[in-house]
C-alpha cells in the first residue's frame, strides 16, 4: 500500500522493483521537508524526555540557589554549594560510592569474564544459561531483603562460616566498616554479574570459530588465545558493559536503604542515599538540589568523556 509522493512526474517505467535495477529517486518532495523529516521523527522522543528531565533539572538547579523551609524560599546564592564543598558527609558519600561501586564493579567484571571464558564454548552451559541469569530477574528490593536476612537478621552467613570453622563468633556486618561495605558489594555482585556474564559470553561466541580453531591447532594455550585473539575483539564490548554498569552503580540506593541505612557512621552511605536523606529526612531541599546538581555535572562529564567515544564513534 504505497502512497505516492506529490510528485510532478510519474516514475520511469523501468524503476526497479528489485533492488538491482537502476534506481531513480521517486521522491519529489520539497527539499526543506526532506531535511526536516528526521528531526520530526526524533522530536517526540526528545520532547518527552525534555519534559521529564529538563523541567526537574532546571527546577532542581533553581532550587539549589535557595534555602527552602516549607514554602518559604530564601535566596542564598551559592551558599548551598559552598556548604556542600565543605560538607564532610557529602565527600564521604562520594568516596563511599567510589569504593563500594569500584570494588563491586571490579569483582563482577573479573568473575563474569572468567566465567565467560570458561563457558562460551560449552554446550551444557547453553541449557543452563537461565540459572546464571536468575539473580538479575529479581526486584532489587527483593534482592536486598534476601541479603539483609542472610547477613544480618537471620545470621545465615555467620552461621555457615562458623559451621565450616572459619570464624568463632558471628560477624558484625553493620558495625564494621569493611564488612558492611562487603555486604553491599556481595549484593551487587550477586545480582549483576549475570548481566556482564551474558554480554561477555555473547561477545566471545561472536568470535570467528575458524580463527580460534586455527590458533588452537597452532598450539596456542587458552591464555594466549584469550589474550591475543579474544581480548582485542572484546575491548569495545567490555567498555560498553563497564560503562553501563558503572552508570547504574553510581545510583546505588536500594541496597543501602534496605540493608544498612548508611551505617556504620555513614560509611556505606552512597551519594544517592545522601541526597535522599538530605531531602527527605532533613527537608533541606535546596541543599539536596545542590548535591544533585553536582552529581549531574559529574555524570555528564564522565559520560562525555567515555560514552561518546565508544558509542558514537564505534558505529559508523
Amino acid at each position, binding site marked *: 500500500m504505497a502512497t505516492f509522493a506529490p510528485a510532478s512526474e510519474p516514475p520511469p517505467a523501468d524503476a526497479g522493483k528489485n533492488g538491482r535495477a537502476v534506481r531513480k529517486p*521517486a521522491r519529489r518532495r520539497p527539499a526543506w521537508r526532506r531535511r526536516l523529516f528526521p528531526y520530526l521523527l526524533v522530536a517526540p522522543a*526528545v520532547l518527552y524526555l525534555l519534559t521529564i528531565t529538563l523541567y526537574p533539572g532546571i527546577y532542581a538547579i533553581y532550587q539549589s540557589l535557595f534555602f527552602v523551609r516549607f514554602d518559604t524560599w530564601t535566596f542564598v546564592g551559592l551558599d548551598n554549594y559552598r556548604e556542600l564543598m565543605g560538607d564532610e558527609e557529602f565527600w564521604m558519600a562520594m568516596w563511599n560510592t567510589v569504593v563500594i561501586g569500584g570494588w563491586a564493579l571490579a569483582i563482577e567484571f573479573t568473575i563474569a569474564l572468567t566465567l565467560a571464558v*570458561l563457558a562460551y564454548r560449552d554446550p551444557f552451559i547453553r541449557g543452563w544459561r537461565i540459572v546464571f541469569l536468575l539473580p538479575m530477574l529479581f526486584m532489587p*528490593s527483593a534482592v536486598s*531483603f534476601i541479603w539483609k536476612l542472610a547477613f544480618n537478621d537471620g545470621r545465615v552467613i555467620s552461621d555457615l562460616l562458623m559451621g565450616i570453622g572459619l570464624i568463632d563468633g558471628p560477624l558484625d556486618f553493620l558495625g564494621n566498616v569493611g564488612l558492611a561495605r562487603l555486604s553491599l558489594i556481595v549484593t551487587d555482585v550477586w545480582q549483576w554479574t549475570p548481566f556482564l556474564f*551474558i554480554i561477555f559470553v555473547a561477545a566471545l*561466541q561472536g568470535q570467528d570459530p575458524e580463527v580460534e580453531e586455527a590458533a588452537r*591447532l597452532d598450539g596456542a594455550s587458552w591464555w594466549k588465545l584469550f589474550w591475543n585473539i579474544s581480548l582485542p575483539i572484546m575491548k569495545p564490548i567490555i567498555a560498553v558493559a563497564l560503562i553501563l554498569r558503572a552508570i547504574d552503580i553510581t545510583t546505588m540506593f536500594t541496597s543501602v536503604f534496605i540493608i544498612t541505612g548508611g551505617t556504620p557512621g555513614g560509611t556505606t552511605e552512597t551519594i544517592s542515599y545522601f*541526597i535522599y536523606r538530605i531531602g527527605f529526612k532533613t527537608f533541606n531541599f535546596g541543599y539536596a538540589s545542590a548535591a544533585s546538581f553536582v552529581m549531574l555535572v559529574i555524570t555528564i562529564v564522565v559520560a562525555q568523556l567515555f560514552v561518546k567515544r565508544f558509542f558514537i564513534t564505534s558505529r559508523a
Partner: protein
Amino acid sequence: MSTVHPTTGPAADAAPGTAAPAPSRKRPPMTDAERRARKRRRRRSALAGSVLRYLILGSWAIFCLAPVVWFLSIGLRPRTEIITPQPIYWPSFSLDAWHMIWADWPMGAYLRNSVLAIVGSVIIDLALAIPAAYSLARYHYKGRDDIGFYILSTRMMAPAIVAIPIFFLFKNLNLLDSVWALMLVYAALNLSLVTWIIRSYMLDLPHEIEDAARTDGASDLSVLFLVIVPMCAPGIVTAAVIAAIFAINEFLFTLLIASTQNAYTLSVALANFTGGSDGIIYNAIALVAFIAFLPILLLVLVVQKHLSRGLTMGAVKG
C-alpha cells in the same frame, strides 16, 4: 545471538592425530612415543582442565541458585522460624504468608498496577522510540550525534535527583497516585534504552529493501512502518522485554507517586511488609518477590537468545 557452532572445548585438543605441531622454533622431530606421551599428557591436563572448569562454573551456579531456593523456603515457612538464635535450614512447611498476602492485602491490585504500568510504559516507549531510532539509524543530519547522546544521557539521571520536582509536577497535574503517572515515569526512564536497542537493530538491516520500497514510491513513513518495523520485530520485542524488566524494578519514584492500591506496584508493595507494627515480615516479602519474578522469568526464557545483543545495544554482533 551468535550462530557459532559450538566447538568442543579444550578437550578437542586430544582429537585428531593430525596434531603434529608445526614447530615454530628448531626442535628435533618427536618420536612416536613422545608424541603419544604428549597426547596423554594433554588429555590428562585437558581432563583436569575440564574438571576445574566445571567446578568453577558449578560453584557459581550454586552461588546463584542457593539464595533463591533458600529465599523460597523462607516464604514457605511460619514466621516464627525465620529469625531464631540459630538459622533453621529445614523448616516446617506453612502457607501462612501466602494466605496473608492475598487476604490482608490487595495483591491482585498490585499485580494489576504493575502490569498496567509496565505495558503502558512500554507502549509509550515503542511509539516514541521507533521513529527516533529510525531517525538516528538511517539519516544523517546535523546534531544527530548530539541528540542521540542526549537521549542516552537521560539514563544517567539518578532518581533521587529528579524525584522531588517530579513529585511536585505530578501533584500539580493531579496525577499523583495514578497508574498514568507511573506509566509516564517508567516510559521516561527506559526510553533511552529502548531507543538505542532498536536503533542498533535497524543499523544492521540491509539498505536494499528500503531503497526498493522507496523506489516503488513509498513515503518515508510507510517505509518505516511497513518495511522496517516488521524486519526489526525481534529487536523491538527484545527492547520491550528489557524495558519491562527495568520497569518492574523501579522503586523510588513509585514510592513517591503511589499512595493507595490505585497505584501501588509489586516493588513498593514489599514496603507493606516492613513498615508496620509487625516489623519485617520476611515470608510475605519472599512470596511477593516470587510473584514478581515468575512473569519476568517467562519473558526472559522467550527472548534469551536476543538478550545479550539487546543489552549491549548491538555492539555485540550476531
